[in-house]
């Protein structure tokens, strides 16, 4: 970090010259975090196989400081949503996300996690994990190649580089909010949408009763 301007401003004694680096707190904090991202060992579908290939010998993402895959959410700071998120599984995914300690990131790997992908129209498929979790990086592909996944993870590192200790959400006084866990009903129920659902089903019931009444009136 020694430059011409620096020497005029800071007086560095000759015995420690070349051994001292001056940087910002943000930079050193982010450098530490970006170089030791621990993903959660958690595969959903096809993309998980490409994730394993990325971790294996040919592509080896430990070159970027990510080789420590943790099976427990308590020890992980990156959730790689690698595959189709179904309504039955999203309950657990939200729970796992809530169990991860801050700072935490979510990467939506592949078309399914980003927006439902080829299975979007299915009755048991969540069209994108971002309906429930805040996603940091989306990686396109079905499945993304290992190169694409590595690119996505480097993009995440770039995002980490831009964060500042002053305004990251986990150092705010309000704390981070827990995401309400969806409930398995006749269809999946997001607790944040209770009012909306009630309104919709009541309207639907009213509509159906008028529909069934009208032909009866005509007959009469």
């Amino acid at each position, binding site marked *: 970090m020694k430059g011409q301007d620096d020497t005029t401003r800071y007086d560095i004694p000759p015995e420690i010259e070349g051994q001292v680096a001056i940087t910002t707190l943000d930079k050193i904090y982010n450098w530490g975090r970006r170089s030791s991202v621990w993903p959660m060992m958690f595969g959903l579908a096809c993309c998980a196989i490409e994730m394993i290939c990325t971790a294996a*010998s040919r592509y080896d993402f430990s070159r970027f400081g990510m080789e420590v895959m943790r099976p427990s959410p308590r020890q992980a700071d990156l959730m790689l949503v690698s595959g189709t998120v179904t309504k039955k599984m999203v309950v657990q995914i939200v729970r796992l996300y809530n169990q991860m300690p801050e700072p935490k990131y979510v990467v939506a790997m592949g078309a399914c996690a980003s927006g439902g992908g080829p299975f979007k129209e299915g009755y048991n498929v969540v069209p994108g994990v971002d309906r429930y979790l805040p996603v940091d990086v989306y990686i396109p592909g079905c499945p993304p190649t290992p190169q694409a996944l590595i690119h996505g993870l480097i993009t995440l590192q770039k995002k980490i580089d831009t964060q500042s200790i002053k305004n990251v959400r986990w150092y705010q006084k309000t704390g981070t909010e827990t995401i309400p866990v969806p409930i398995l009903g*006749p269809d999946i129920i997001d607790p944040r949408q209770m009012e909306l659902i009630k309104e919709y089903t009541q309207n639907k019931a009213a509509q159906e009763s008028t529909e069934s009444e009208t032909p009866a009136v005509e007959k009469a």
Partner: protein
Amino acid sequence: MTEQTLVREDALISRFPEWVSADDRKGYEGYIVQSEHLIEVATGLRDEFGYDYLTNLTATDYYPDDFMETVYHLFRSTGGPALVMKVRTSREDASVPSLMPVYPGADLQERETWDLLGVRFEGHPDLRRILLWEGFNGHPLRKDWREPFYEEEGKPFKNRWPDGKVYRIEDKNPFNNNLDYPAGFNPETWVPEKDAALYAGVGLIEKPGETTDMKTDQVVVNLGPQHTSTHGVFRMVVRLDGETIKALKPVMGYLHRNHEKIGERNTFLQNMPFTDRLDYFSSMSNNFGYALAVEKLMGIKPPERAEYLRVMMAEFTRICNHMAAVGFFLNDIGAYFTPLLYALEERELILDIFEAVSGSRMMCNYFRFGGVARDLPDGIYEKIRKLVFDRLPRKIDELDLYLTQNEIIRSRGEGLGVLTPQQAISLSVVGPLLRASGVPYDIRRADPYSIYDRFDFDVAVRYHGDVYDRFLIRIDEMRQSVRILQQAVRDLPEGPIQEGKPQYQVRVPAGEAYGRVEGPKGELGFYVVSNGKPNPWRYHVRAPSFINLTALETMAVGNKVADTVAILGSIDIVLGETDR
């Protein structure tokens, strides 16, 4: 062949003249059995006619005609073609006697048919939903059931083609999401079912005969759905006495992606890329099974060169899959990641070939009805030759040398999770699992398809039926695959790779067909019913990973909880296929 069928027909109908009649609709095969006498006919078929092996069970909804048909595909475990049996019921009150007493392998398949089609199987001991959850609204594979993102009955949707006025389906949904609720539903008073029925099924109460001298408490433990040893999002609920497993229930559906419902909206060819995503380790063999089923309906056959390319790709897939299976299995029993890295290295080389011929590493989408999509690109033949004649045999020997006599795998695998041949057949177990139990049943020999009858290879078989044998058999099968590959590469003829002109929209005559291949995990079957329209009327996948799980409880009970991980690893499941 026809003569033989006629003889068989006569025999069955003359045995049960009152209860059985031939299915004489055009394009259909088999028999229609009266619902009340199903058990008697099935027992007769098993004990007198030798059809001891029920592999496929599903139903077809003939809406708006008011009936449903439950379809059974029975085989002889000594080989030969299928016997198709159908039972008709009304749609409103669809109920059929359960075949569990005759074929215990019907267990999970009957639950699936209940879940998705609403056919009640009377006498099934544990008829719960399996892929969806208790409380789900309706039975989605019924033809009058509509998903929240419903657009039209069949593709191509008018807004895409030919009109081209594309909109996002979310924008038409009041929640801007894939959601719909029944009228009058109140989310605030809703009490979710949770897993009460499931836990009741595992049972906290000791069964008679289980009590020992020492009074111990039993606990119920969940393994999964997020668990590193379950190969995905699979869940097992076990009841433990100390460390010993007293009961086990598999729970699945966490990756239920509605393959069949989407498949029935798609056109025939549009389903091809979806089959890739069933068993995502072996997309080429999935393509193979589906192509066979539809080709059977269309009555076409691919040209010679395409047949050879198909066989080559299918055998490469088998090696690929078994490499991964062996690697992950070693992972499960504690040889953490080192063997897997060796195995995945070979897999990568095969994936390079897949990428060169099809354009994608994993999701190949390579087969077409009556051929394959592309010919080998320049230079790939030489690469394949080097791989199958030099590198792969050497590397398989290397894996064998390093692993087979290894202390960990022997002490953890030998004598664990034994499945006898009788159990394996009655539980509808297929593939390496069946052959490791001493039943030399391989569809490539038992009911040959494509050009497998031309190749010289042995059906790998082992006789102990334990976890260790299931590991060994995968090494054996890789060796046999290399043998087939060497012959196919040697004999690969020149010529066209597609029968007729490649088409996006194929004309499929009305009828039904069941195409099955010996996939790396066992019998992969596709049951397709066409009514002459551009979309299949019924599209069912008989998934080996799913049905092999029927035997999980039998193998696991009595062992330690840590051994379930090894047993599950030895079945080699893939969740994309289990849950579909």
